[in-house]
Every structure is written in structure tokens, then in C-alpha cells.
């Protein structure tokens, strides 16, 4: 079980790095918002795996909060983008 958890953590770490490359490269702000939302999802998965590894179920509360914050951040960014109108970045 320990090796399976280690492999999955490595896979999700690579996924975080790939998503971060998209955050850096852009090219536009909506792309970065999508990448940040993917970030939130991957971190929720990492927290879940860590809860299994340490056998502490309280980590799930943190996962709920992270999922909620990711969703609210996406909604807020989208409102902010729509207010701004057409842009070129």
C-alpha cells in the first residue's frame, strides 16, 4: 500500500508541475484561471491520499475547504474577466 501511495503522490506532483507550466506560459488570463482550478482539484486529491497515508480523517475537512475555495476563485475570476470586456494579453 505504501508504494501505491508513493507512486500516486509522484504522479500528482508531476501533474502539479505540468499545470504550473501552463500558469506561467499563459498565454491569456482565462488559461491561467483554468490551470489554477486544476491546481485546486489536484491538491484536493493529494490531501485525500495523505489522509489515507497518515490514517487521519480530519484532513478531509481541509479538502472540502480547498475545493470550495477553488470554485469560488474560479467564479470570482470569471466575473472579473467579464466586467473587463474584450482584452488582448
Amino acid at each position, binding site marked *: 500500500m505504501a508504494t501505491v501511495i508513493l507512486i500516486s503522490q509522484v504522479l500528482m506532483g508531476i501533474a502539479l508541475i505540468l499545470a504550473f507550466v501552463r500558469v506561467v506560459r499563459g498565454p491569456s488570463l482565462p488559461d491561467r484561471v483554468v490551470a489554477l482550478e486544476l491546481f485546486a482539484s489536484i491538491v484536493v486529491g493529494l490531501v485525500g*491520499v495523505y489522509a489515507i497515508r497518515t490514517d487521519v480523517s480530519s484532513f478531509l475537512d481541509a479538502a472540502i475547504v480547498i475545493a470550495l475555495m477553488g470554485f469560488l476563485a474560479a467564479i470570482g475570476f*470569471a466575473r472579473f474577466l467579464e466586467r473587463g470586456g474584450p482584452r488582448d494579453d
Partner: protein
Amino acid sequence: MIETIKGFLILTGALFMLLAALGILRLPDLLTRMHATTKAAALGVILIMLAVAVHFGEVAVVARAFAIIVFVLMTAPVAAHVIGRAGYFVGSKLWSGTVKDELRPNYDPLTHELKSGLETDSNAVHQPRENDPK
């Protein structure tokens, strides 16, 4: 047996997340990237939370894991819709291989008005509302 199920769920969840990250890195424009991330990442979270539920096996933890699953299932499409809508309004470019953009000929980006293609002289007159941009 439970260990096998748990390991399978965790590994497939992590693989789907890696797939989503690959998609967001390799696909060419905003809408295709969103198509990769929203579904694959949501499925990854759901599988890992199922593994958590199987691992702990207590009512309180299983209820919380299912709460996360329901929350992800409800919010992922909403967030994707809102971001895609904002991206279209902002004018993000579509991939050069895009075959069809049905919104383009019917949508006026300045007034935010859609046309149906069935306008007559009488109902096509622009009726300004009070919150229109000047």
C-alpha cells in the same frame, strides 16, 4: 481485497489527474484545455475520495467523502461554464483547426445581443435597456 480496490482507485485517480495536466499543457486553445481538465480532474478527485471512503469505512468519514464527491460533481460544470463564457466574451482565440463557431455570426460582442436568424422588420428594432453599456 479491500487493499486491492483501494490501490486501484488511488492509482486510476492519480493517472486521470496526470492526464488532465497533460491535456492542459498540450492542447491548443482555451476550450479544448477546459474540456481536458474539468472532466478528468473531477473524475480523479471522485476516485480518490472513493478510496478514502473505502479505507476509513466509518459513517462520518464516508459521509464527508461523499459530500466532497457531490460538491465536485455540482461545481465543476458550473465553473467550467462560467470560465468558458468569460473566455469567449474576452475574445480568447480559437484553435486554427476549429471547424465551426456557431456563436460568431449571431453574437454581437459590443451589445451582448444574440440573433436567431428569424428576425423580421418589426421585432429586429433595437430596444435599449437601462443597464446597457453606453
